[in-house]
């Protein structure tokens, strides 16, 4: 039996999101025992997240209190931390996965594997030279590209599947554990609601509305929720319920909202364990970016994810192809809470229509969204989940950058060469050549700087006084990582490799950099090949006499 440890020192949503990888691991090999190391403050998840054979905990709050409070000897924090990890040290692990890739997890990955070369490791860890090492280029993708690239081409969950090498497996039952008693209670209540309309004999669909997230920038404004509820109450096919945690802030918000409806709304207050039963029995949930979204994905309950502010939907959005993501159009999004006034405003009507789509009450062609709002639908391709704009306004060129960046990754990493241009071939007002020119210019500039760096590198090997020129040109080259062209992706890989040079020998490092520069040059050429493939396919399609179908959506 293989023993696999997943280190995940992130918050609840990320912990639930791990459920997809665990599901794939277990379905591919049910004999594997999967354990997780998490912070003790999230211990409640043990009752809820299925498929995990054992949990280990770091009591971060206690360790911090012991370390920071001057009344306690430093010895106490040191020993507490050491003891929290003692049981993990006793187990013979076959594999360790650094899932969170934060500094603490990375140090702990090094700690657990330091004197155990037989452990197969996935993710990033530190070497004895204190440089970072990545188990594969997928670890670079996760650690270096996804946080920096504006419109992420790969989902976190997929990144981890590829990093570990687990073929994705569809979600099966029991990924969210529930108590039969809770299941029965929820079922009893919801059955009454669902059968409520005896006149039409039509089963009512119950829609949950999650009121709060952990960050106000992500929240659906209260006034929007109130408008949304009014729309839902006017629809005889659906019944809204409010979802809250047993926290005063959420209880108060629910009260305030309920007051608008003469306290007639049903408010479901549940802890983490009971929540599983609730979401399993709802037909759809409307939620901002919360851990509930990830729970719903594991329970296969479709959601409408309202993504705003800091919500990083492209890399961590809903993973369910029956869900939808509603977002201000990508050109307006900055993914931080300081620039939200420039984001498109998601209205109650937009959320309502997305919900109708999710419940298949309306067709896509009937959707009419506010300006600067887009609905994205997750689709599954060879790489994993990709978000396609299916309604509303979007920037075709931005979507093309996303799409071709993903195509480049597919070609490079999984040798998938087929290019599907169906989304773009009928796109109106698509300034293909202007876009191509811009991207090709980026490639030209990058190639110029690669060649300049190579030249100065070779000169510096012959003449040490030229080293400074090499450094300057290398810095200029790496400056291109600030931009978000398709060609930036291979550059990020290059940068990550340069950052992890491990040799103490300058000569050896120089040689490695030279090899990396040649590789980068080749990778950039592959980006150009992707452009050429796309351009050629589009031109073939446009010059063809065959009528083609396609989406007919107004562009920005």
């Amino acid at each position: 039996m293989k023993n696999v440890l997943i280190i995940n020192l992130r918050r609840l949503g990320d912990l639930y999101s791990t459920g997809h990888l665990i599901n794939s691991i277990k379905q591919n090999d049910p004999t594997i025992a999967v354990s997780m190391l998490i912070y003790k403050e999230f211990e409640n998840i043990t009752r809820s997240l299925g498929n995990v054979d054992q949990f280990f905990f770091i009591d971060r709050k206690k360790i911090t209190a012991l370390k920071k409070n001057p009344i306690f000897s430093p010895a106490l924090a040191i020993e507490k931390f050491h003891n929290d990890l003692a049981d993990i040290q006793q187990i013979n692990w076959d594999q360790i996965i650094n899932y969170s890739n934060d500094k603490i997890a990375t140090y702990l990955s090094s700690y657990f594997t330091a004197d155990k070369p037989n452990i197969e490791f996935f993710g990033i860890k530190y070497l004895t030279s204190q440089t970072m090492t990545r188990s594969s280029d997928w670890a670079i993708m996760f650690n270096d590209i996804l946080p920096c690239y504006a419109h992420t081409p790969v989902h976190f969950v997929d990144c981890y599947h590829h990093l570990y090498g687990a073929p994705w497996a569809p979600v099966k039952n029991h990924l969210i554990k529930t108590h039969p008693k809770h299941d029965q209670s929820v079922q009893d209540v919801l059955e009454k609601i669902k059968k409520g309309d005896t006149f039409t004999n039509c089963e009512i669909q119950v829609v949950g509305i999650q009121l709060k997230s952990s960050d106000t920038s992500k929240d659906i404004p209260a006034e929007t929720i109130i408008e949304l509820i009014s729309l839902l109450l006017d629809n005889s096919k659906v019944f809204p319920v409010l979802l809250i945690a047993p926290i005063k802030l959420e209880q108060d918000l629910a009260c305030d909202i309920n007051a608008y409806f003469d306290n007639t709304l049903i408010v479901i207050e549940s802890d983490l364990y009971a929540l599983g039963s609730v979401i399993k029995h709802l037909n759809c949930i409307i939620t901002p970016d919360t851990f509930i979204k990830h729970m719903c994905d594991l329970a296969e309950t479709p959601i409408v994810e309202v993504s705003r502010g800091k919500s990083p939907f492209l890399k961590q959005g809903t993973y369910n192809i029956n869900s939808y993501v509603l977002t201000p159009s990508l050109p307006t999004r900055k993914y931080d809470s300081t620039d939200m006034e420039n984001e498109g405003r998601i209205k109650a009507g937009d959320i309502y229509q997305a919900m109708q789509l999710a419940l298949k009450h309306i067709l896509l062609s009937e959707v009419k969204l506010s300006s600067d709002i887009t609905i994205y639908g997750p689709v599954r391709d060879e790489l994993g989940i990709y978000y396609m704009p299916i309604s509303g306004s979007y920037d075709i060129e931005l979507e093309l950058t996303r799409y071709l960046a993903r195509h480049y990754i597919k070609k490079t990493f999984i040798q998938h060469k087929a290019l599907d241009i169906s989304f773009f071939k009928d796109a109106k007002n698509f300034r293909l050549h202007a876009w191509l020119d811009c991207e090709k210019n980026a490639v030209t500039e990058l190639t110029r700087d690669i060649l300049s760096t190579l030249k100065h590198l070779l000169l510096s090997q012959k003449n040490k006084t030229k080293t400074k020129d090499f450094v300057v040109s290398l810095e200029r080259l790496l400056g291109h990582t600030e931009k978000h062209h398709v060609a930036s992706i291979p550059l990020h890989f290059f940068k990550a490799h340069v950052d992890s040079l491990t040799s103490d020998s300058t000569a050896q490092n120089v040689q490695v950099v030279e090899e990396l520069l040649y590789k980068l040059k080749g990778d950039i050429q592959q980006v150009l090949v992707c452009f050429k493939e796309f351009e050629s396919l589009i031109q073939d399609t446009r010059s063809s006499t065959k009528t083609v179908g396609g989406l007919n959506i107004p562009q920005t």
Partner: protein
Amino acid sequence: MGLPMTDNYQIKTSKTNHKIPVINGIHLHSMYHPIREAESFVLNHLQLLKDKKNILVFGLGFVYHINQLVIELQKIHGDDYKIVVIEPNSEVANDCLSLNLLISDKVKIYHGLSHDRLYQDEELINFLLAQPGIIAHPASFNLYKSYFKNFLQYKAPLSTEKVLMVLRDEHIKKFISDRFMNEDDLQVALWDYSQSNHRIVNKLDYLFFALEEIAPLNGDARK
């Protein structure tokens, strides 16, 4: 700081036939009606008892005030409460315990212990981390003011020597003594160590670096 000295200790009997410890001439409870005195004392702390189910008490005496606290906490929190008592005078504590005056087993008494020793007790540490309410028995507190004030103002010694005395794991002790011998402030030394780019020679380095990330000195994360 050493434990306070007792020059004179005797046990008297109150008008209500209750035993009253008298230390250095100071009566720790009322000689007239210690129970009524205790009731009144607890009433003054009612709000605190409602807010906090864990209470740290300075001064044991002969537990009349403790028993009243127990009664009140039981009314408010049922069985879910805990009282910890710090008492510097072991003689008083032992007499109290032998008289069997306590009415609850949810009272933990620490008596005759130095501050260093107290702050190394795991059970007490866990109790303090839960941020209990603090109540001082006035007579005891006034009698042992220095002891209790120093308890409140205690700062754990940070020298390598003192930290090594608290550590139990031999590997960690060796790691620290090999690298940080004779440091006056081990916390600062560990922080500086974590900021340096030296080669890792012992896997415990990773553990300490991780610890510095969890709770950095002065709140600054490692560069």
